């Protein structure tokens, strides 16, 4: 089973609600889901959609085609028509004037049923859900089992009435729907999945940060990062986390640096434009060796670009941002579950090496959701790095050590003075212009790099090292590229995927091996200039043979990858 449901309409019409309920129905009945949201940078109106992909195996990417569409506006009937599969269905309210009826169109009495059975047009969502389940012949008993939960969970006031509306619409559809749907789930029983935790990428990241003991998060809202911040804010009171919406991004990072200097684990959340404003303070964190985690949920740039769309185009910017040279870490989670782990790792790396850590997410990962197994937080380990002992007297914040890492201490302890400075400084933190110290401090920074690299995750090889073709990918496109590998291999191609989540400093051993072994290498990135491939060249001198680039702001799919490879004659 692999069905893609698509709920389309205007912002503010309840697309998300239907999508969430649909997700819940399938999760509760044991299926794997993957939900993506496509919306414009406006608050009401326009054409938005939610895609819920349901499968009996885990999926980590959307698809381009649509199996069943619920359209809440005329535009949503017409616009996605080309992407409807043969044997697909478009359900829409029969009050929408639409003449060019084809067999795939199902004008349904959604709002009428809502009014008649539920007493309110606001239950049109429930009606849509009923119609949808009916069209794919989702077993009515299974549906009944979950609908009550679903509406209760969604906080719908009149749970029973909603259930009635949905059920009624299910029946009406059975009676009235005369088309053919290519999916018939009537024989389906509960799916194999026990995954029940539905999280977005931003939620997973925020919860990971909480698990890692984040104690201060300051941020200025910016799509698509805001929901990560709001997730922490919403839980700030129960966990006692300091959170503040600041006047700008500069203040956000400076506050986080201050709180970190004082001993708290800190994070900021932003997107590219906000990250741009943080660049000077990033250098302050670097120079003062103050750990801090910066979550940059990327969106298409340059400048304001497409605020609610997705892209992977801040990679080299993140790697080289700020004047001067200092060690840093850049990570990009590959999946929603990985966003949780990445957050935990980010805080530990930041503390251990006393460097800023940038997490590069993107809108696709941030706003997508899927069902996951419960996360066991008891395995989370907090590593605060080397702390100064009692014998560290007089305390030297920037003591020169073999590995470049100086034991940390925090202000407030009797007998210890903790001095931090963004100017070139002595071991004690006070400023200097001595060229020898300058050299020593620059070398202190260089020394950290090999150990950081070793602490990072090597790339993941999917498929055989000996494959003819290697697809090189990073971050959130993991699922799409992996699925593309499956498709290609099913078609008899010898292909593997080398996927990076830990981008900088780059681990190059496996990369060299695989790239030099393969006869064709292809970088696949959600940007126009193949930034990761450039980083690879920079670090190894190796060039990928081909580059696939997607930069229209829409998430990548396996189909897109395969089509492009075939279109270019590479696969």
């Amino acid at each position, binding site marked *: 089973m692999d069905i893609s449901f698509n709920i389309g309409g205007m912002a503010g019409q309840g697309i998300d609600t239907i999508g969430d309920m649909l997700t819940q129905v399938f999760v*509760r009945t044991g299926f794997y889901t993957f939900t993506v949201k496509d919306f414009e940078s406006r608050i009401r109106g326009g054409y938005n959609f939610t895609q819920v992909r349901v499968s009996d195996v885990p999926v980590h990417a959307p698809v381009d085609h649509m199996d069943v569409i619920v359209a809440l506006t005329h535009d949503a009937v017409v616009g996605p028509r080309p992407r409807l599969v043969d044997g697909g269905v478009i359900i829409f309210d029969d009050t929408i004037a639409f003449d060019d009826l084809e067999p795939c169109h199902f004008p349904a009495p959604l709002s009428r049923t809502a009014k008649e059975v539920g007493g309110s047009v606001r239950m049109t969502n429930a009606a849509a859900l009923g119609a949808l389940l009916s069209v794919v012949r989702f077993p009515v008993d299974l549906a009944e089992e979950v609908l009550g*939960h679903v509406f209760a969970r969604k906080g719908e006031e009149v749970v029973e009435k909603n259930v009635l509306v949905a059920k009624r619409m299910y029946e009406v559809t059975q009676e009235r729907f005369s088309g053919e749907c290519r999916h018939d789930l009537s024989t389906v029983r509960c799916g194999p999945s026990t995954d*029940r*935790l*539905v*999280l977005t990428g931003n939620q997973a990241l925020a*919860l990971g940060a*909480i*698990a890692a*003991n984040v*104690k*201060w998060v*300051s941020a200025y809202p910016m799509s698509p990062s805001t929901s990560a911040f709001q997730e922490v804010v919403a*839980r*700030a*009171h*129960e*966990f*006692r*986390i*300091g959170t*503040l919406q*600041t*006047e*700008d991004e500069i*203040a*956000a990072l*400076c*506050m*986080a*640096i*201050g*709180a*970190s*200097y*004082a*001993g*708290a684990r800190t994070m900021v959340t932003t997107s590219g434009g906000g990250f741009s404003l943080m660049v*000077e*303070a990033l250098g*302050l964190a670097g120079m003062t060796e103050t750990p801090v985690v910066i979550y940059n949920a990327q969106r298409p740039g340059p400048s304001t670009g497409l605020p609610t769309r997705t892209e992977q185009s801040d990679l080299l910017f993140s790697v080289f941002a700020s004047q001067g040279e200092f060690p840093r870490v850049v990570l990009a989670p590959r999946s929603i579950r990985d966003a949780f782990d990445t957050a935990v790792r980010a805080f530990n790396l930041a503390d251990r090496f006393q460097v800023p850590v940038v997490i590069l997410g993107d809108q696709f990962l941030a706003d997508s959701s899927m*069902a996951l197994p*419960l*996360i*066991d*937080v008891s395995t989370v380990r907090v590593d605060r790095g080397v702390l100064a002992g009692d014998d560290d007297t007089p305390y030297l914040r920037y003591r020169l050590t073999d590995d470049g890492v100086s034991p940390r201490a925090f*202000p*407030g*302890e*009797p007998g210890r*003075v903790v*001095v*931090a*400075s*963004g*100017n070139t400084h002595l071991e*004690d*933190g*006070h*400023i200097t212009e001595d060229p020898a110290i300058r050299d020593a401090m620059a070398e202190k920074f260089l020394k950290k790099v090999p150990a950081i690299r070793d602490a990072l995750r090597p790339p993941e090889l999917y498929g055989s090292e000996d494959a003819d073709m290697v697809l090189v990918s990073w971050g959130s496109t993991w699922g799409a590229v992996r699925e593309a590998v499956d498709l290609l291999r099913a078609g008899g191609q010898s292909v593997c995927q080398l996927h990076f989540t830990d981008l900088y400093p780059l681990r190059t051993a496996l990369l060299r091996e695989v790239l030099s072994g393969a006869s064709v290498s292809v970088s696949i990135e959600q940007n126009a200039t193949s930034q990761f491939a450039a980083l690879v060249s920079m670090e190894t001198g190796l060039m990928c043979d081909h580059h696939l680039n997607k930069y229209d702001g829409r998430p990548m799919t396996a189909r897109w990858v395969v089509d492009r490879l075939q279109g270019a004659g590479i696969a």
Partner: protein
Amino acid sequence: MITQSDLSPPQPVTWCKGCGNFGILAALRKALVGMDTPQHKYVLVSGIGCSGKVPHYINLNSFHTLHGRPIPVATGIKMARPDLKVIVHTGDGDCLGEGLGHFVHAARRNVDIAVFIHNNGVNGLTKGQFSPTAPRGYVSGTSPPPPGAPMEPVNPVALALISGATYVARGFAGHQASLVRLMQDAITHRGFAVVDILQPCVTWNRVLTWSFYNGHIFDIGEDGHDPSDHSAALRLATAGGDRIPVGLFYRSDAPTLADGLSLPESGALADHVNDLGLLQQVLRDMQLE
């Protein structure tokens, strides 16, 4: 509890001979020596400028930050460690040029820190360009005649008052006794405390000199100003004219930023640990049955 020698400069002072910063540093030392908070409970935060070098001339926990950004850094420190007294030393360029937004927002949040503005009317360290407090027409390398600086100065006292600061004063580097008192009050005040300190820059500023200030300042306390009267304070601050009022303009009680955040009931945020059991429960609750 603190002695003068506890505070002795970690580094030789590099300010120009005769600079008003010496008076400010001396007053700070006296202020701290005269109070009963132990030395390790202070953190000094500075920006970049001649003023920004204070941390290297007094032996305290400190963070020498970026130009314009000491206030947000100090805010973060204070939120993480509310038990520490956080003092900001900032220049007029630092605080009212590059960092003006932070100043206003920290004031309306009533962040419990003390901000001492070394107000010398110039960017001292970058060689004397007019600063945001330089008078209209001030002549410098970036504002040659005609007509000198083509704009009105920022009025830090009025700005602080309008923005919501709960302790607003003006001091003079040359009046040690009263400056020490204002500093001590600002440090002990619960809320955002600003002292705009008139500080002659003997190298660059030929207008706002020691003798100019000595000839023009008057103490508003002696004039019977009531520091609980916000409108009177605002009137004094915006009066204009030849004479420059110094002293305490305004003091009030209001909730601080920390009061409005979900900080731990007791102990510092920096020492608090997220309850993993609770997090596990949260995750469990998020699951769909």
